[in-house]
């Protein structure tokens, strides 16, 4: 406190201003990082997530994929032991190894599905707000329709639809279309992984579309957009160079939280047997057989995949909360 007794409140304000002026000028990114750093739980979440990445990436360096997928019927349904830390499943596969590889699948699905839903959401929301009129009405009614259908029902129906072989006739001959397995980073992913990504991506863009629409609606009226238009910028340039960057904060936050949502959705779809198909493991499909064997008391089959799902979602949610506060320009942190 200052020794000046004349008017304490004025002095404090002046002090603050002085401090702001003398400090180094911070870029927006630095400001965001400073606010994020002060959010203790967000840091905990970030560190937790980094540890998880170490576990599932480092683990796959040490443990070969065959160790996760190989069955050994003699060792089926074993409780945790020194040999199998997390026990074994109903076909004798080691749960610890499957958690490592399943985690990679779950995270890959989470990130790619969110990539897809963010792209869709930004385009739909942006187009609706920018063009307005009947484009807006049409797109928003479709968005509402998708939101009205319960998400799990939508996941199931779409999951079954995309898992089909499609017969279609092109130029007089009948062809069959089916999603193929993909080889990525030296590993082969079954086609079901691609399907799950599509299913989740196509069913989770609606909230973001609404957020982007609301943001673009208010930004569209701002002077800098008018100025840009006066300078002859094209619609696409205004959209991608001015409008999208200004809603980036909201997009980043909802993408982060969206990854958590996508991992849960993957778990739901795989739990119901529509998602990632064995032998490829995912945290969700590890739980499918847990349901049938829980009545025999095979607790480890349920506990470990669930714990990893909860831990991951918790870390991402904590990080997302911190990002939300840090990216909000009105936040005082």
């Amino acid at each position, binding site marked *: 406190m200052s020794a000046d007794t004349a008017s304490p409140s004025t002095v404090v304000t002046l002090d603050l201003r002085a401090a702001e002026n003398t400090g180094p000028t911070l870029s927006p990114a630095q400001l965001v990082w400073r606010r994020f750093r002060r959010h203790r739980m967000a840091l905990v979440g970030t560190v937790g997530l980094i540890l998880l990445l170490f576990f599932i990436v480092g683990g796959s360096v040490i443990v070969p994929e065959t160790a996760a997928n190989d069955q050994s019927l003699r060792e089926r349904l074993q409780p945790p032991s020194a040999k199998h830390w997390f026990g074994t499943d109903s076909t004798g596969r080691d749960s610890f190894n499957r958690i490592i590889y399943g985690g990679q699948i779950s995270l890959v699905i989470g990130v790619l599905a969110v990539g897809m839903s963010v792209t869709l959401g930004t385009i739909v929301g942006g187009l609706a707000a920018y063009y307005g009129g009947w484009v807006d*009405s049409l797109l928003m009614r479709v968005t509402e*329709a998708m939101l009205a259908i319960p998400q799990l029902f939508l996941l199931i*129906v779409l999951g079954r639809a995309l898992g089909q072989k499609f017969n279609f006739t092109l130029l007089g001959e009948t062809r069959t279309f089916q999603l193929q397995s993909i080889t990525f980073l030296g590993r082969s992913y079954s086609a079901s992984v691609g399907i799950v990504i599509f299913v989740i991506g196509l069913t989770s863009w609606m909230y973001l579309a609404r957020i982007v629409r609301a943001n673009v609606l208010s930004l569209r009226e701002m002077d800098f957009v008018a100025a840009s238009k006066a300078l002859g910028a094209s619609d696409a340039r205004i959209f991608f160079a001015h409008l999208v960057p200004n809603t980036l904060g909201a997009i980043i936050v909802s993408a982060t939280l969206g990854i958590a949502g996508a991992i*849960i959705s993957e778990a739901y779809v795989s739990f119901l047997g529509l998602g990632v198909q064995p032998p490829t493991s995912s945290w969700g499909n590890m739980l499918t057989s847990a349901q049938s064997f829980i009545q025999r008391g095979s607790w480890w089959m*349920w506990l470990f995949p669930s714990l990893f799902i*909860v831990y991951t979602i918790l870390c991402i*949610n904590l990080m997302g909360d911190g990002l939300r506060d840090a990216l909000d320009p009105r936040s005082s942190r």
Partner: protein
Amino acid sequence: MWSYLARRLIQAIITLFFITIICFTLTRLSGDPMAQYANRPGITGAQKLVIRRQLGLDQPLPIQYVKWLSLALQGQLGDSFFSKQPVTTLILQRLPMTLILMVTAQISIISVSLLLGIVAAIKQYSLTDNIITTFSFIGFSMPIFFIALGLMLIFAVQFKAWGLPYFPTGADVWDQKDLRAMIWHLVLPVSCLTIIQVAGYSRFLRSSILEVLGLDYIRTARAKGLIERKVLFRHALRNAALPFVTILGLDIAGLLGGALVTESVYAWPGMGRLFWEYAQRNDYPVVNGVLLMTSGAVVFFTIITDIAYTFIDPRIRLG
């Protein structure tokens, strides 16, 4: 008000129209109901064609859609392909069971969230608040089958193994008219729905109560000497509950759809399980019927909530 209502109704009808298109297309794409007959011996190709024609599957998709829609507009959702019963009958058979589960769950959810939300808000930053907040954060990050399987493992499987009184897993057959058996079978599914929902709701209530408690009229109420209990319940809670009512209103529609995962884990014969059983067999009429009913309810309750809001909160005028 009336022009607003008319506009909302027109929007709702267009939305419903899109819902029917989305549901119809997706269910038709999700597989061939004839696959059921593929491995059955004694059914010839010609018989399959006859069945296909009987089910109306031989016509082009747009025509099938128009037929289905015009019947649906008259309240007829068609007959199930396999059980041959009318879809409306199937739905009405399951609806009571779903409502019993969901209404019980909702009562328990609302009371527990109110309790936890209020306690966490008035004891802000205390140990109790921190514990509630931590648990709601964890609960918020949980998929429901984690809780569903966990409760089943502990209270049904292990309790039985330890010789304690145990809850049913749902694998047994029970008389649905027996009230005691009903309550006994309700405990676990209701608890797991409660745990999951309370996590989000109590956090939401806590922050809206805290927001209201910082307002001037609360200070006025305290300044005029009201006891804290009256300030809280008569003044603060009434306003803090407003946004909560909106959320509840929107969630009520979801109740009709049941809880697919909880119902399948505990073998509760409700709407969620109806949907899941028939979706696996590509029984289009039933799947479409359930989809249409639940999404229609969501659209309807959104409008009702909007209107109800103007009555609860006179400050809001619909423009």
